[in-house]
């Protein structure tokens, strides 16, 4: 169990990590999700012991490891850049943590071959890392992390610099490979869909703070606040500020957006309504879906999907829609919002739903 207790890291007067408390269980997969500069790497370096927290403490299995040098901790880390020892062969690269630990030759050979097999590196064991492709280099780094049999595995955007095919392949395999070891697995990423694909738990980061930590799907569906919701949306979350009066939010042109049933009790005030791009549609999918007239600004077609950028009043929205749709710029179209999928945040950006309702 890795525990961060009120950890703060300040570098040259700037807070990189602000009062983070987090508990990670053995055998769990934890995703750190946040935009660049949100503190993912800083947090990982603190977990690894590469940096010392300015305040707070870090505990591992009930032992305070705050000042313990990184050599003495059983951790493995893989960076976004492909970091290997260029002067050694792939075999020696993978074997290096075992050699340092003083394992005997037969064990080393067995472990290296097993890891190489797992990551499809067997044909390249005799080469040096710089003679490999990017994907192979990163797999070498991953293999080194595997043989170490670490209790804490930190992967800092390990797939960010790979081409998408390899990324998808490795993303599917990584949790499986490390799940067997029973280690605490921490994976940093900037991409919400990567977090969703990996599953497990997610901790969303914003400006050095953890905004929410919990099972990935739950955080995605019911973010505690607007920042978390924004962090966890790609393309960006659609928002609009609306006034609630009675049982509905007032949209332009006298259109009413019904307040979701579980939020019926909230006070009449201004709220920020948020909804994911795929919850906006051309057709009225459900009976209570509400149609609004929006103006098309751009349409991006990715193949099987279209991103339609819309403007509605002051708001800029993106609609994600299956199939290819083409619109003229400035064309006015009717789009439908399903009130069951809207998230409601109060003036402070906090979710309007009370915790008891979240659990329900």
């Amino acid at each position, binding site marked *: 169990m890795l525990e961060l207790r009120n950890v703060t890291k300040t570098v040259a007067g700037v807070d990189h990590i602000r009062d983070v408390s987090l508990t990670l269980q053995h055998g769990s997969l934890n995703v750190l999700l946040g935009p660049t500069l949100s503190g993912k790497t800083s947090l990982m370096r603190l977990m690894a012991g590469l940096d010392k927290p300015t305040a707070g403490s870090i505990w591992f299995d009930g032992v305070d490891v705050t000042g313990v040098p990184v050599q003495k901790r059983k951790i493995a880390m893989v960076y976004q850049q492909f*970091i290997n020892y260029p002067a050694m062969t792939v075999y020696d690269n993978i074997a290096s943590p075992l050699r340092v630990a003083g394992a005997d030759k037969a064990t080393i050979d067995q472990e290296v071959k097993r890891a190489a097999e797992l990551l499809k590196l067997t044909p390249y064991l005799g080469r040096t890392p710089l003679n490999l492709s990017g994907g192979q280099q990163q797999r070498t780094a991953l293999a080194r992390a595997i043989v170490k049999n670490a209790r804490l595995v930190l992967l800092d955007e390990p797939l960010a610099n790979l081409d998408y095919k390899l990324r998808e392949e490795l993303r599917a395999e990584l949790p499986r490979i490390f799940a067997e070891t029973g280690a605490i697995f921490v994976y940093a990423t900037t991409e919400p869909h990567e977090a969703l694909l990996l599953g497990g738990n997610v901790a969303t980061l914003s400006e050095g703070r953890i905004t929410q930590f919990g099972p990935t799907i739950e955080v995605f569906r019911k973010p505690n606040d607007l920042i978390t919701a924004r962090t966890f949306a790609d393309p960006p979350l659609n928002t609009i500020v609306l006034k609630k009066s009675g049982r509905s939010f007032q949209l332009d042109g006298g259109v009413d957006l019904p307040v979701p049933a579980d939020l019926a009790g909230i006070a009449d005030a201004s709220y920020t309504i948020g909804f994911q791009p795929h919850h906006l549609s051309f057709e009225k999918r459900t009976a209570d879906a509400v149609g609004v007239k929006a103006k098309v600004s751009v349409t991006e077609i990715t193949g099987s999907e279209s991103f339609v950028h819309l403007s509605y009043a002051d708001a800029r929205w993106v609609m994600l829609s299956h199939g290819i749709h083409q619109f003229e710029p400035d064309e006015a179209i009717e789009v439908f919002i399903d009130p069951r999928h809207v998230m409601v945040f109060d003036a402070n950006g906090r979710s309007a739903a009370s915790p008891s309702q979240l659990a329900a």
Partner: protein
Amino acid sequence: MAGTREAVADKDKMMRDAVTTTGAVHGGAVDEALARRMRRRGEESRFWWVVPTIYIIFLMLPIYWLINMSFKSNQEILGAFSLWPQNPTLRNYAVIFTDPSWYKGYINSIIYVVMNTAISISVALPAAYAFSRYRFLGDKHLFFWLLTNRMAPPAVFALPFFQLYSAFGLIDTHIAVALAHCLFNVPLAVWILEGFMSGVPKEIDETAYIDGYSFPRFFVKIFVPLIASGIGVAAFFCFMFSWVELLIARTLTTTDAKPIAAIMTRTVSASGMDWGVLAAAGVLTIIPGALVIWFVRNYIAKGFALGRV
């Protein structure tokens, strides 16, 4: 003459080939004009070799003349002008290899040069690592100040060194010269090595620590191999400076540690100037430098590209 004409024909053919390939891109009439222009330019550049040849002759002449002289007897050198030795002799070299006062000079030079290179590199490695990996108060100023040591001519330091080393009884020892040259070589080596080290991502250090390497083990096993070419380049510059530096080496030595360059400046013997022996000594002095350059030539190119010199 036939050979030249063939060469010209070849060149013309190459030009035409080049034109046909470009022709695919351009079009008809433009092609013709281009081809004509290129052909004319081709003829004009038949004398492309003239300037480089003159340049190389200009550079090589003194060296050739030195080698030429080293195979002549003194009478021939002082006698009629000749482009090559009329009566080639190895006497001059024989003198150097048999007379201790000559060959000792080479041994002395090599001893203190090697000592200096070893000291400079082993001192500069940790210093350069500190400069490349850590930020500390005044690090940038200190780094620049290091280089300013090289801005003063060695003559400036000859007097203080002489005084200081006399006081410690170090005069006429190899270590005295080696240490004195460190004043110039350590800053340069730090400067070069820092460039190479900064090219190695810090994450490699961290990965090694995560893998369990202690700092000394990481440094020797992982880091040094990564900057091997940088060490080669730095060692080369230390070697070259120490090998050619004359003033300090001469000031700090009298007989036992006298370098070859100093011996060469005092060859007026009872029988007058021994030109031939002097030339032979000169040739032998060029050889170690040439050898070192030959061995590190690949690294030098890399060094100029990666490190800062």
